[in-house]
């Protein structure tokens, strides 16, 4: 336990040395009379990788959609880099859980979409897209349609698509949950490598605690829904660069896991009770 420098801190009072990139101030998300999350306060510093874990159905995704501007909070404020979020945000990258590629466009056409919508000239667009496809290890797959790619390859294309415009914030909604375990490890390492090159603020939603610790700088725990809120926040002070498969054997990883799980377990049990 001596090695594990784990101290739970209240999310609202976390002190950030770097400037805040995403601020969520007492945000409430409700649909009709159903309140998914209530009074959530979260701050993500520039270059910080925040992982949010919580039991299924606790409204994790709605928080992400509020940051993206896809959903409007019924209370509270969200701002990115000091600018309040109203409407769809274009300086974010969103990595969806599902296949979000346009099936009628080839890999390279999908990757260059963000640049196309920003009005970048064709030649530059092609060049940068080729570079990004090479970066995610898909050189030679430029002209393939999504249905001609494997699940992992499609995720790679999605990563390139989300990152090519150099977004200020990267949002991820259980991005690898649909992949098999080996592909998932591969993709997680890939993601860390890309993120390490150019550190952006990341908000990642996951129900996989191992993934949250292995990838994140900080893990926030959400309570069981409805009326979910942030109940705990843990700093993950594991050295980077990390290898996702190996870091799980690190004793400090296990200590963190034990601590966070102690906090999360109660909520998971509650969420099952409410559903049964």
């Amino acid at each position: 336990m001596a090695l594990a420098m784990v101290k739970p801190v209240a999310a609202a009072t976390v002190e950030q040395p770097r400037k805040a990139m995403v601020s969520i101030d007492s945000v409430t998300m409700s649909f009709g009379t159903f309140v998914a999350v209530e009074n959530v306060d979260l701050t993500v510093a520039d270059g910080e990788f925040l992982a949010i874990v919580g039991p299924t159905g606790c409204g994790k995704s709605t928080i992400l959609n509020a940051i993206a501007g896809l959903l409007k909070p019924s209370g509270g404020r969200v701002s990115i880099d000091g600018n309040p979020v109203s409407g769809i945000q274009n300086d974010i990258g969103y990595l969806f859980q599902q296949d979000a590629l346009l099936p009628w466009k080839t890999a390279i056409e999908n990757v260059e979409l963000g640049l196309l919508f920003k009005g970048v000239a064709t030649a530059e667009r092609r060049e940068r897209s080729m570079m990004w496809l090479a970066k995610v290890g898909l050189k030679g797959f430029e002209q393939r349609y999504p249905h001609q790619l494997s699940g992992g390859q499609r995720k790679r294309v999605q990563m390139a698509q989300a990152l090519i415009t150099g977004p200020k914030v990267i949002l991820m909604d259980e991005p690898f949950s649909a992949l098999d375990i080996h592909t998932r490890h591969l993709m997680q390492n890939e993601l860390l490598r890309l993120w390490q090159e150019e550190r952006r603020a990341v908000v990642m939603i996951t129900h996989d605690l191992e993934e949250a610790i292995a990838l994140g700088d900080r893990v926030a725990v959400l309570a069981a829904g409805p009326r979910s809120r942030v109940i705990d926040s843990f700093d993950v002070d594991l050295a980077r660069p990390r290898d996702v498969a190996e870091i799980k054997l690190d004793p400090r990883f296990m200590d963190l896991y034990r601590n966070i799980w102690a906090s999360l377990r109660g909520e998971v049990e509650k969420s099952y009770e409410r559903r049964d």
Partner: protein
Amino acid sequence: MNVATERLIQLGLLVAILGGWQLGVSTGVIDVFFFPAPVDIFNQIVNWVIDPNFYRHVTITLTETVLGYVIGTGLGVAAGVWLGLSRSAARILDPFIKGLNAIPRVVLAPIFVLWLGLGLWSKVALAVTLVFFITFFNAMQGVREVNPVVLANARILGAKRSELLRHVYFPAAASWILSSLRTSVGFAVVGAIIGEYLGASAGLGYLIAQAEGNFDAVGVFAGIIILAVFVLVIDRVLDVVENRLIKWRPNAAEEKTA
């Protein structure tokens, strides 16, 4: 079963049907007044095909079909996409659309003749009313069934409304629209033919009506066969167009030949 055997069986079936028919006619079992001999029908078709006058009729029917088809599908796609995007407009117009669609189109033919005369346009109008609703409902459905995740992704990537239409809505609706475009061809022909049949001075429908007026069953059957070929040719053209346009779809080509 391999392809060659299947083709052989198909050919065998055709020979059996036509041969049996011809045999029935020559032995007197089948009354030629109602079911003329295949050989006579074939001769009639040949006579028409070598007669330059015949192509005037084909041209007129083709013009009516194409005009009705293009105008009808154009309006159908435009209205379908619009109402697919705007839920409130769709709700407001819904009873009117259902009401209009409930009218049997054939009864409109006399009105169109009254409004537009016996010429080309009354037939075009009839074809338009038949074609419009098919493409309209398909285009609307296609736009509504756009994958919301793909849509959200495109919006986050910065797509404006016109770009969403071009890069997301239209391609997503394309397979729906294209399948309706193929069904519509038959209806465009039906519209043109019925229009001609009810009152015209030229066209394939007119030829059939004339043959019928003379109790000329040979002419009626020959006209029917020519119409079938006419539709098959247009269908084949659309097949090629469709495979060109949606090459991104998995197994688009395999499904077609299967």
